[in-house]
């Protein structure tokens, strides 16, 4: 479902269209479950977060007027529900990622030489590869420190705007951008390691 369809669905729900209710519940139940599974690390926590989030959404639905804001509003509720579960998270690395560590070794200063990275130019298309590498990708995302993971999930998996992610996470625009870049670089590095191992095999 693309962005416009999500907004149309939110408009129908806000307008009291009960036919849209089940589609809305299923869409967000799945989205929140997947987000919170990667945030909390436990299936049962993710089940509870998605259920609690939807209860809160419908309890407070009359506070929301603009359908365009629905997705960010729902995810903000989900993010807070995830924070309540954090004490039980198995993924809690708190360290910060430095750009230096994320820069691959190689001859950066000689434009003719290759970096020591996998051959990313000749990969199958992203849709196919995302299925093939689903496990490696999941691990790369799950192992990110939480401050980067939350931004990557909203910006790249849910394809929200920088402004929406900033609103949901109570961060400045610059903080979202900085964390997104470091998070992306860390995922790239893990996938690169995976591809190089696969190449060797």
């Amino acid at each position: 479902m693309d962005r416009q369809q999500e907004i149309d669905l939110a408009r129908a729900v806000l307008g009291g269209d009960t036919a849209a209710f089940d589609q809305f519940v299923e869409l967000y139940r799945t989205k929140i479950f997947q987000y919170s599974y990667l945030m909390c690390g436990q299936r049962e926590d993710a089940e509870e977060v998605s259920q609690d989030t939807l209860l809160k959404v419908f309890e407070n639905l009359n506070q929301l007027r603009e359908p365009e804001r629905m997705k960010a509003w729902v995810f903000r509720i989900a993010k807070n529900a995830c924070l309540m579960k954090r004490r039980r998270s198995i993924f809690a690395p708190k360290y910060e990622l430095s750009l230096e560590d994320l820069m691959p070794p190689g001859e950066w200063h000689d434009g003719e030489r290759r970096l020591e990275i996998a051959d990313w130019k000749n990969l199958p298309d992203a849709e196919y590869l995302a299925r093939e590498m689903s496990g490696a990708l999941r691990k790369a995302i799950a192992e990110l420190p939480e401050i980067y993971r939350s931004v990557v999930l909203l910006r790249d998996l849910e394809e929200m705007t920088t402004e929406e992610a900033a609103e949901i996470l109570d961060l400045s625009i610059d903080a979202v951008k900085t964390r997104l870049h470091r998070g992306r670089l860390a995922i790239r590095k893990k996938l690169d390691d995976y591809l190089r191992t696969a190449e060797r095999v």
Partner: protein
Amino acid sequence: MESQGHDALACSEVFELLSDYLDGSLAPEDCERVRRHIHDCAPCVEFLESLRQSVSLCREYGSIERPAPLSPDVRERLMELYRRATHQE
């Protein structure tokens, strides 16, 4: 290759800007400086391609993990709240 000239960017500076470059969120003059640098720099082109592919993979990521089916009790409770919020009862 490291570009020459007083406004030229080093690889490490380009490296910091690559997500904004991919997202099209750089100011036009910074975008132009990055473009000029990578035009002549094979390692930066190669790295940019790997980052672009990695971001595409995240966008295509669809977890095979699904939530358990919604129980009829919970659905009923949600519907009740929905009807109340939209003044349908």
